[in-house]
């Protein structure tokens, strides 16, 4: 049978996932010395690893061309729809936050507020829950700039340490959601290859506890 195929989010999540896989006994040399190869073998041909951008990890898993994926909860909240979210891997921790210019009273007044964000779906869901109408502007780069130059009243963005916010005179006024890396599985794969997936899930669960 074909080895299980796992899509990893390139960069930091990939590195930590590889460390985890090594910890539970899989040889990941090929992933660490990948060169230009895009599909890599792990262990004794136990798995194939594919490296992809975060949102693409979800796409590959949803379409079933990868059985499993490791991706941040931020990406799941923004892009996710139908797959199994099997495990909170506990690393890559950060939070979505609503931040505004220091001492700005965001909730006062009746005018519709404007939010700049890279995560329009997360932002929409957050304010829908509050039954609050907001104008959302999608920004691709440094979102912190938007309230400073007067484009928006606030931002919804990922906050790790908060130092970028502080350096630009912004402050968090509300936490939107907790984020960490998650193990996701294609729905059909989990049903068709239950034993293998559960075995890996169990090992990862034990080592991340």
């Amino acid at each position, binding site marked *: 049978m074909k080895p299980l195929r796992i899509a990893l989010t390139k960069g930091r999540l990939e590195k930590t996932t590889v460390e985890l896989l090594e910890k539970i006994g899989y040889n990941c040399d090929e992933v660490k010395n990948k060169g230009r190869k895009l599909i890599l073998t792990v262990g004794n041909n136990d798995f194939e690893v594919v490296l992809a951008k975060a949102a693409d990890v979800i*796409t590959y898993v*949803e*379409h*079933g*061309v990868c059985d499993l994926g490791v991706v941040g909860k931020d990406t799941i909240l923004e892009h996710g*729809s*139908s*797959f*199994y*979210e*099997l*495990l*909170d891997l506990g690393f890559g921790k950060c939070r979505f936050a609503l931040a505004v210019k220091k001492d700005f009273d965001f909730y006062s007044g009746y005018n519709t507020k404007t939010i700049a964000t890279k995560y329009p779906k997360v932002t929409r869901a957050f304010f829908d829950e509050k039954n609050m109408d907001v104008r959302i502007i999608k920004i691709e780069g440094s979102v912190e700039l938007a309230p400073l130059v007067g484009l928006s009243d606030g931002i919804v963005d990922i906050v790790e340490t908060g130092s970028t916010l502080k350096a630009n005179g912004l402050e968090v006024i509300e936490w939107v959601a907790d984020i960490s890396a*998650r193990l996701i*599985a*294609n*729905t*059909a*794969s*989990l*049903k*068709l290859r*239950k034993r293998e997936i559960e075995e890996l899930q169990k090992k990862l669960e034990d080592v991340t506890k």
Partner: protein
Amino acid sequence: MNQYLKVTPEGMKDFLFAECSAMDDVCGRIEQVFRGRDFKRVITPGIEFYDVFSLPCSGIAQEDMFKMTDNRGRLMVARPDSTLPIARMVSSRLKNSTLPVRLYYKQAVYRNNPTLTGRRNEFLQMGIELVGVKGIRADLEVLTTAVQAMQAVSHDFRIELGHAEVFDALSDGLPIDADYKEKIRLSIEGKNYSALNSLLDRLPPCQAVQAIRSLPSLFGGAEVFDKAAQICRGTAAAEALGYLQRLYGSLSALGLGDDLIIDLGLVQRNDYYTGFVFSGYINGIGDAVISGGRYDELLAEFGAPMGAAGFAIDTDAVTLKSLSDGSVSYSDNPDVLVFAADGHEMEAIAETARLNAQGRRARFSVLPTLEETRRFAAERGIAEVITVE
């Protein structure tokens, strides 16, 4: 202004030659099973009133439907599902017939999926509905028909079986509103353990909460029943569980072994399911290709309360799979081209028919000269050209 003359809309596609042949093959095999078990075909309209699908239990979001209006301004949709129209049809046109009604359908459904996800917005479904009867015999009839249909199109599939009552019975007693229940259901459906745990941690601990917590992990073979029985003992879910075990026990006679699994976390979006529910997967297809179950409350929404069960197969997905496997033998070419010398066209057409009747694939050449016919045959790799003169 842009004219969209030469492309199809996103999510739609043309089916050509080998694709149609593969589709006919898949549909033919399934149809043979349905007819063999004496289900009768029906066709419902491609466009229906929006109201048919907007019932709260339909599980079809309004943004997922293609909408239009009729000439009186009433909202219409391109059929996004076949079960609801069939419920409408049975409750009106068939309400005085002798029950149960056994019917099958083969028709496209339309879903307006999010853009650029590569999903199909039009796909052919085949399915059955067994309406007007409840009980284990009806459930076994539906399930074994489903298995037989899967066997007709694949050697490598898996069926998973669950029961809508398990989750409903456990969650009914909890102090939660419909929104909260839906969040719990979604996290079970997505096997999202962390979300489920944080939702349940906010509730007063009790046996039902503990049982719900373990639902997504309760899938597998017969051993699931032992675990589940312990967890659900004394709760309202015990009865559904016992029934599911009976179904599972009966179906084991089919010899599916590991390919029949139990999933108590199978809580589908279609809220109309009330009894057993099931899905089927084929190796190599990333989504369920068959899904169905019992929906005893749905017909009441149309004013004709009666039990019913059925399923739908995504025959397009099965077709695409068989095409990519190369398991479809198909050739564009006839064995023989029959060319008529001027004035002998009707003889040649008769000769073509005669050859076809003998079982050779013959085609009457519609090109004006023998040279052109020969050149065409050479280009296409058609072995033989015969001339009638």
